[in-house]
């Protein structure tokens, strides 16, 4: 008697996350006008970066996009640092330091410059190390704040439930940067890619990835 039902072999290997055909995806993005980034190390929008890596990257994982805040964000700390640098000179010029004994004036100026240096370093490092990755498998948010605190969160692409973006203010509209909010079903329910350039393109890439992983 012929078999009515022949069961297929049971899958014994564990299910691995889908690996996207990155090259095809890359070609697709090129066709859409999104070019490969060959820009400086300080670029905020790096599509398919070649010389960028992170410690927890898996062997079969490729970085599609590396983002950080728009460079214009740095203007605030640069301006404040410039003002702070002139404070000791202004105090000396107007004689506001006359009550200090000899020697103290010099040391206090040095301390002031040390604090200013720390402030500038904090501004730069917070911007430089605050990065967001979109890879073939995951989204990763690396937060570096207060110089000694850091937080790294990630979520699988399949866990993304909703993506939206907002562009705020005159500068945000003029320079095309904004916040990309990603709702996920993972341990971290919401990812906020703050003040990133071209949020519309980020949204498009994330939506494309989600479609491909479905």
């Amino acid at each position: 008697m012929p078999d009515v039902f022949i069961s297929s072999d049971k899958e014994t290997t564990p299910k691995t996350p889908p690996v996207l055909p990155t090259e095809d995806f890359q070609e697709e993005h090129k066709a859409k006008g999104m070019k490969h980034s060959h820009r400086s190390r300080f670029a905020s929008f790096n599509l398919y970066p070649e010389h960028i890596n992170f410690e927890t990257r898996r062997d079969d994982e490729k970085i599609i996009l590396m983002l950080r805040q728009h460079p214009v964000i740095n203007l605030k700390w640069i301006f404040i640092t410039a003002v702070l640098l002139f404070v000791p000179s202004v105090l000396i010029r107007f004689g506001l330091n006359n009550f200090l004994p000899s020697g103290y004036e010099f040391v206090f100026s040095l301390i002031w410059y040390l604090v200013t240096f720390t402030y500038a370093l904090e501004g730069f490092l917070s911007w430089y190390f605050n990065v967001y990755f979109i890879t073939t498998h995951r989204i990763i948010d690396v937060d570096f704040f207060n110089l000694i605190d850091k937080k790294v969160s990630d979520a699988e692409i399949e866990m993304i439930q909703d993506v939206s973006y907002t562009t705020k203010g005159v500068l945000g509209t003029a320079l095309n940067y904004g916040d990309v909010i990603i709702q996920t079903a993972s341990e971290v329910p919401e990812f906020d890619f703050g003040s990133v350039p071209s949020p519309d393109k980020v949204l498009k890439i994330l939506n494309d990835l989600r479609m491909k992983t479905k």
Partner: protein
Amino acid sequence: MENIFTGGFNIWALIKILVSILLGMYILFAFVLTRQVKLMTRTLKLGFEAPVKFLAFIHLAFAILVFFTALTIL
């Protein structure tokens, strides 16, 4: 009339001690910062590791310099 500046108690000596303690703590902070930058550059390879580590090291060196200057001059 005797005040704190002319009396036995010298406010500037107290300030010197406080400044020295604060600068000593600042050196510790600067050292922790260099460690943190080292960890971050190990976690993220963004192509600017050496200059960033150098900046953190310069910051530590500056903090040590200010500490010893304060000890010498004040």
